């Protein structure tokens, strides 16, 4: 078994567990839906700044719902002390990180796409014609979000107030991704070509590469005693 196949085994284990309980994705979707719905009540139809506000609403829902999923990610490993069982396996710590990252990434992308769907219905936005560029933005944002989130989720797993700690740690670090995702999806929702958001997409790409690499390198220290 190689590095990637062992990482996939960890992600697969998380996916199987989730398919059976539906604890994480359902709560993420419900929360994402509620955020979009509440904002929808507050924004009057025909408001001049509506198009400026929409991307912010969308990505606020994405981040809040995503954090719910991240909180569950390592908390599930605490049951029966499974995290210790995992750490006892003769695999590099980066295998464990990558496995957990993959699981979180898949849940986040799934949640992101469905949140877009809710958004499309509630804000009367046709996303079908822009599904590819929006999909690309969701994927880029989900990589950065899951890369940092997986690391911080592991960091906060032993803390009683981990839900609060994770949010406090994650929000400041996620600002570049949220900003870039909101700006680039705003370009797409305005009907302009994705190329106009090239700078923001580039920022997300660089962020993803840096934080994925740094997280892989530092995870060992995070899960040590």
């Amino acid at each position: 078994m190689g590095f990637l196949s062992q990482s996939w085994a960890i992600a697969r284990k998380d996916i199987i567990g989730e398919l059976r309980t539906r604890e994480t994705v359902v709560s993420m979707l419900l929360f994402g839906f509620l955020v979009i719905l509440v904002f929808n009540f507050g924004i009057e139809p025909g408001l001049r700044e509506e198009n400026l506000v929409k991307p912010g609403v969308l990505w606020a829902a994405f981040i809040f719902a995503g954090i719910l999923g991240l909180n569950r990610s390592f908390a599930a490993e605490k049951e029966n002390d499974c995290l210790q069982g995992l750490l006892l396996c003769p695999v590099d710590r980066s295998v464990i990180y990558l496995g957990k990252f993959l699981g979180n990434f898949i849940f986040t992308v799934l949640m992101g796409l469905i949140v877009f769907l809710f958004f499309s219905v509630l804000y009367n936005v046709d996303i079908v014609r822009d599904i590819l560029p929006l999909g690309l933005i969701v994927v880029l944002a989900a990589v950065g979000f899951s890369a940092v989130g997986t690391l911080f989720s592991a960091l906060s797993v032993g803390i009683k107030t981990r839900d609060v700690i994770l949010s406090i740690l994650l929000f400041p670090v996620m600002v570049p991704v949220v900003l870039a995702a909101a700006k680039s999806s705003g370009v797409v929702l305005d009907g302009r070509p994705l190329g106009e958001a090239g700078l923001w997409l580039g920022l997300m790409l660089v962020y993803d590469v840096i934080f994925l690499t740094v997280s892989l390198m530092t995870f060992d220290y995070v899960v040590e005693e």
Partner: protein
Amino acid sequence: MTSTLETRGQREADATVPELTIRVRGLWKYFGHVPALRGLDLELEKGRFLTVFGPNGAGKTTLIKVLSTQIGPSEGEVMVGGIDVVRDAHHLRRRIGVISHNTYLYPNLTGLENLRFYGRMYGVSHLDDRAARLLEEVGLLGRMDDRAGTYSRGMQQRLSIARALLHEPDIMFLDEPYTGLDQHASRMLRDVLETLHTGERTILLTTHNIDQGLEMCDEVAIQVRGRMVYREPITSIDRSAFEQTYFEHVGKDYRWDS
């Protein structure tokens, strides 16, 4: 000529010196400023079964955690299977199996899926055959497709034994494995554990239950306040006399303010 003689003499001397699987010297472990292990020394020969008794807070679980690479020592030398637990933990993990009162089992995966998952992590070959054989040995073949979360505590602990044996470790650490088990489940677990004691496998069991701890071991030790205070082979121990000895040591040394 002299060197040949010396080499032969060295070999003969080596042949008479038993191979040590566990060698611990001057082990200290602090949690903050509180020492859980205080200069602990321990040696265990290959193939031997040692039971370490001790009251709550004696540092038994901490000892197992250090030996099994779960936590690092604060001071001292710890060699397991000839491997330094700090420098080469990764390789040591291939050779050790840990059974604890925590089962390390995923409740939402079936018994078979749990074994498959851990088998992949350990790179076990012919995984399905190996998992099926172990499930049969621990008496869970008929429940292998049920979620581990639906198992009784005793069944979970037996599945945990199968998990720990998947990669055929030659060193086993058992940390209070009977915790939370009723009499029947304890008996079943004991039968399974008995099969582990083959003479090839080195086993270290920690418990505070004297009856269960004396059942299968070759040697007995008592750990109090982070130190080994007593060590004897089982053959020289009378059960009732040992109980007296145990309480003498525990009573004498159990006050942390002393």
